[in-house]
């Protein structure tokens, strides 16, 4: 079973995302901020195959997390979905510059999340070919 890492400082969001991901067939691990996420990724290596990260988090935010993940050759092609309340064009471009694969605004439905993940996986497969 594929494993997804949910990174969010909100317990509510971690729980909701966890349930949605289990519903679409993922095993889930969690982190409360970017720094914890890096620890979990190293600990669980190479099992984590998808990262869902919030933007606003204490200690290390989602954007910094993505930049660090992308600079590591082990995770440079890791599919990453940004999940946030920030929705301006400037925010989206900033996340894309950090090399996030896709972007979804809160709140979202399980179906919207599923479609976003499927879209990312399709893009990643195409670029791998």
């Amino acid at each position, binding site marked *: 079973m594929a494993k997804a890492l949910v990174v969010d*400082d909100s317990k509510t969001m971690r729980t909701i995302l966890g349930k949605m991901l289990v519903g679409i067939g993922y095993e889930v691990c969690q982190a409360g901020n970017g720094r914890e996420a890096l620890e979990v990724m190293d600990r669980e290596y190479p099992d984590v195959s998808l990262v869902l990260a919030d933007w606003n988090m204490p200690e290390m935010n989602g954007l910094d997390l993505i930049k660090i993940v992308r600079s590591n050759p082990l995770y440079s092609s890791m599919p990453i979905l940004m999940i946030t309340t920030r*929705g301006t*064009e400037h925010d989206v471009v900033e996340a894309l510059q950090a090399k996030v694969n896709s972007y979804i605004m809160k709140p979202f439905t399980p179906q919207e999340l599923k479609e976003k993940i499927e879209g990312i996986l399709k893009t990643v497969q195409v670029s791998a070919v």
Partner: protein
Amino acid sequence: MLAEKKVNEDAGTTESVITALQKVIMLLDRIKNAIEDSSSKIPNASVQLNTVTQATELATVEILDVLDQMGTKIHMVENGLKEFDGKGIPERQLLMLTGIRQTLAELRENTSNITVALQVQDITAQKIGAANHLIESVRRELLTELNYFETAKKKTDEARRYVEEDKAGPKSFDVNASYMKTPEHQTKIDEVVTAWQENEKK
């Protein structure tokens, strides 16, 4: 005669200045007391706001657990109903079974909708975090002003230390967080993402 008049006038002016100064001192004292009073109440407000966030988070997670249990029970009933499949049961009972299955599907949909709606807790927490940050900024400003009153210096130093030591509550938030996301909003984001990806391919 003129000299006596001048002395009387000077005395009158001095008295007026002293009276005015006394009024200013009283006013400054009242301002100082008001600032001290206001800034001492702010930590309570911050703590209360953080308590609200923690309580709603706890309640939300409990609701999510209950929804999970409901989902499991719905699944069990649906599986139980499969026992009747292909058993040649009468038309009337078949209609009832279809109705029950439909109701179960609606219940499943309802639990899913509640789960989606509960994301409002995270959005509310971010708004409260932003309000708390604003309140703390006001408090810092008030404490800076209080420093002008020498007698209050010790108190402000203590109060400032309290603010800096207070690490409770969310420190990261989106001040514009909103629950009202329109489909058009996500569509615009998707367009930006797609355009970016197309550009990357070139």
